[in-house]
């Protein structure tokens, strides 16, 4: 089986500032396939930083919702496949 590729998948970091924003994030977790990196489960609380991976397709709609609700976020990794290939940055001994 060909290995899974993660082309243009993104890793977001969001820090909900209040209950409303935490609930928006919980709803996004229900309607999208989010792979939680930190914490390693769907545990979203106010003022807790949450890192999650999402497909390229879904990332646009997620970004739209975050922008629309003026939620603070950053994109930690813009292309996951690229980061996967870049981790091997030490030549053979």
């Amino acid at each position: 089986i060909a290995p899974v590729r993660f082309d243009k998948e993104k890793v977001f970091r969001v820090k909900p500032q209040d209950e409303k924003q935490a609930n928006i994030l919980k709803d996004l977790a229900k309607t999208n396939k989010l792979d939680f990196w930190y914490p390693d489960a769907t545990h979203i609380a106010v003022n807790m930083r949450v890192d999650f991976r999402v497909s390229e397709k879904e990332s646009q709609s997620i970004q739209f919702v975050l922008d629309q609700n003026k939620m603070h976020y950053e994109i930690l990794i813009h292309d996951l496949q690229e980061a996967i290939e870049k981790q091997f940055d030490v030549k053979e001994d």
Partner: protein
Amino acid sequence: IPGRHSYAKYNAWDKIVAWTEKMLHKHPDMVSRIKIGTTVEDNPLYVLKIGKKDERRKAIFMDCGIHAREWISPAFCQWFVYQATKTYGKNKIMTKLLDRMNFYVLPVFNIDGYIWSWTQNRMWRKNRSKNPGSKCIGTDLNRNFNASWNSFPDTNDPCEETYGGPTAESEKETKAVTDFIRSHLKSIKGYITMHSYSQMLLFPYGYTSKLPPNQEELAKVAKIGTDALSTRYATHYIYGPIASTIYPTSGSSLDWAYKLGIKHTFAFELRDKGKYGFLLPESQIKSTCKETMLAVKFIAKYILQHIS
């Protein structure tokens, strides 16, 4: 030789197995290998015993690689064994530790998942057991321990990344580790488990916000451990009980070991803090391992000096 094992690189499972054999042959007086069981896909679970032959001495059990995608974790266990064998007789602290205690090191806990993260899905986390009645594969081995197992709703669905399995200790990997620790409980005085990422040093409990009876001592050891770690490259770690430092989690190995009676149990969340996350570049492996050695040696020294 292209493709040989390297402490500066991430190594696939077959290289790690070959490396364990190499360590046996290079250090027959100090390294022995114990097969504690097999995984769901019949890979051998090897624990390396580092130290003198005497089984009655105090020991610390350290596991790496319980979550498949956290590749820096197995890299640390390999580095630890390398440094222990290389600096014994040269470094004062390591010599004192190995003269008086043993280390049981499990280089990769979740072997099947680790192989899968190399060959099929770099983002894989769980093991590779099948779940009857579900198309979803795998159990989160760090939710499968009998410590308030399955007490949170998000560990019920086999498709969840934190699925705790059909029952506590349902997984061959978990059972192999718990059986080994139970059968060596007289000598094992400390338990350390390596994860990534977010640069934290954690202690029980995860399943409750209650604090363990010796939490002041654990906090003191964790503080000094993170201080020691940061002396190398000024890498900043935070420390504290799992539940309030990250979030409540049930069925973890840390809580299980603590409740079994090992009162000095710690979990490391290694580098980094999210810039690369699980994809920490190989160029950071050595510095991550070197700084972590300082904390692990401090914890071991503390246990040697304070725990009877």
